[in-house]
């Protein structure tokens, strides 16, 4: 790690930033899960038919992100080989101790939902193929080959039920990640009851945004056109959730400033100094204002399809950066000032190394590789 540039007084153990880039990535990936799952549930539970083209993809995306949500933590832990202590010897006074259970529960729900949604495909593929491939799909379908109308109807009912449990679970999972930070009274930049809600809303925003961008790219690669109603609807939801998200983010800041507690002097210096680019410029000015206006135009005016898609995609890319910047500003920002409130340190991630940029990029790419592999096994675009 590069030597930290300090200013003012820090407690001597605070010079090095402990929670690194990977701890920024962890809530970011977890957030993408929540958003993608909500989109899939809007179709499966709330019957938003216009989202059908991305419903299966959204579910697979949620599952893929979920599979890798914990990996940044494992790379960060001092003793990853003891990671399961959190489930075997949990201490329930700790907000962190519930993570293993909440995560596992949610993973099971999403895996089950995927199985039920893709069951007819598994059965079809098992019937159509021969040899090892046939065996593979038969095992995947757990030997259940009943695809009668009655069976499919039951599948649909179960899927709806799972999605209905999945929504609160997704909210709990991500609200919980926010609580991990929001409940730490030692840190005035983190300690706010708004934190879980802000995390949840930004999670949904990033999840919808990643679907829009991926959907557009995949359709382009497949030489197909983007479904107009689906895109319009996704942009509308993105706009709505983002309005709530950015309002809460601003509310949090305004409350802190207006209350003007002892810590405000340090926090205002942090915002005006070390976080000026990532917080003021990136998170608010560039990546909030522009998408807010663009998505407003997309949602309120009737535009040419290509213009609408372009605005939607640009907004989504900016919002993906906005949420990443927000995670950075929370996680890293909270460690840049001393708990003595008298000084600041700095952080610049290394490129190589266990917690470096390269590892972060590889970990972030893994869910997309997983989506590709799943598509090879259970093509989720075929039926549209």
């Amino acid at each position: 790690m590069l030597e930290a540039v300090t200013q003012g007084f820090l407690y001597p153990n605070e010079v090095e930033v402990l929670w690194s880039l990977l701890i920024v990535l962890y809530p970011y990936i977890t957030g993408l899960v929540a958003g993608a799952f909500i989109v899939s549930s809007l179709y499966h539970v709330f019957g938003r038919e216009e989202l059908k083209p991305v419903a299966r993809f959204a579910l697979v995306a949620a599952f893929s992100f979920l599979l890798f949500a914990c990996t940044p933590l494992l790379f960060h832990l001092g003793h990853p080989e003891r990671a399961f202590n959190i489930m075997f010897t949990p201490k329930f006074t700790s907000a962190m101790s519930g993570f293993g259970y909440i995560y596992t529960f949610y993973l099971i729900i999403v895996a089950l939902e995927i199985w039920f949604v893709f069951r007819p495909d598994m059965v079809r593929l098992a019937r159509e193929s021969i040899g090892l491939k046939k065996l593979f799909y038969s095992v995947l379908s757990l030997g259940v080959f009943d695809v009668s109308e009655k069976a499919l109807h039951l599948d649909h009912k179960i899927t709806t039920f799972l999605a209905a449990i999945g929504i609160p679970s997704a909210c709990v999972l991500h609200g919980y990640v926010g609580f991990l930070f929001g409940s730490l009274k030692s840190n005035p930049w983190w300690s706010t009851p708004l934190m879980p809600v802000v995390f949840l809303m930004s999670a949904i925003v990033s999840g919808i945004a990643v679907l829009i961008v991926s959907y557009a790219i995949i359709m382009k690669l497949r030489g197909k056109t983007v479904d107009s109603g689906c895109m319009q609807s996704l942009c509308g939801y993105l706009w709505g959730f983002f309005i709530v998200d950015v309002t809460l983010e601003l509310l949090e800041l305004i409350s802190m400033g207006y209350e003007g507690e002892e810590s405000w002097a340090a926090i205002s210096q942090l915002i005006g100094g070390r976080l000026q680019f990532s917080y003021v410029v990136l998170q608010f000015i560039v990546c909030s204002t522009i998408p807010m206006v663009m998505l407003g135009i997309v949602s309120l005016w009737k535009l040419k399809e290509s213009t609408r898609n372009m605005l939607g995609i640009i907004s989504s890319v900016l919002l993906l950066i906005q949420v990443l910047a927000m995670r950075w500003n929370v996680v890293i920002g909270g460690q840049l000032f001393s708990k003595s409130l008298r000084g600041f340190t700095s952080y610049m991630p290394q490129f190589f190394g266990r917690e470096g940029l390269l590892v972060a990029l590889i970990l972030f790419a893994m869910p997309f590789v997983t989506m590709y592999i799943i598509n090879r096994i259970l093509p989720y675009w075929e039926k549209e």
Partner: protein
Amino acid sequence: MNADRRKFIKQTGWTLLGSGILVSVSSFFPAAGRAMQKGSAHELYGFIVNTNRCIGCGKCVEACKTENHVPEEFFRTWVERYIITADDTVYVDSPHGAVHGFKDTEVKEKIEKSFFVPKLCNHCTEANCVQVCPVGATYTTKEGVVLVDEKHCVGCGYCVQACPYGARYIHPERRTADKCTWCYHRVKKGLMPACVVVCPVEARLFGNLKDPESRVARILREERIGVLKPETGNSPKTFYVGLDKEVR
């Protein structure tokens, strides 16, 4: 099964489930003053720092490093120097934790007051670090000492973030949380913590709060004392004599 019996079983089930949830939820919240009563009947350790006495020599920091093999860039204890000028500007420093003491100040303005404040783990009664450790590796002994089980700690760093005093760090070789133990290994043999032993001016005192004849208990009874960041609700057992409002 008749209806009455079924109703009884159902109600008992709900009651058990309800009480289970209630107990687990209540254990999630810290109980003010609860831990003061836990611990053995005869021993509850406490630490007193007299800031009026400290001369900033840094012998305590050096002794602690030697006794506990503390890595060079981290500190289980350190000393801060406060310089407050006539226009109320506060200068604070602690070069290398003051392991080599302090050089003359470079502050040019008129100095109103100046003093040294030794810092260490506060071994809080309602320790935030104990509350947040997800695996129970950080715990409080029956004598009120907060320790880390390095064989169980996963090295997540949550306790480091939760400590409002900056008293914890992740040990670079062991990759687990580390901090002041009040030299528990010495104390259990009837010795004093290393920093207390080497302090030439008795700015650091350690003893049994439950023994009314101990010096720490007497000072707590007779002097005006303060604790660091009382607003966090952590109830420290490291007490300060002569604590200035600028000290955090």
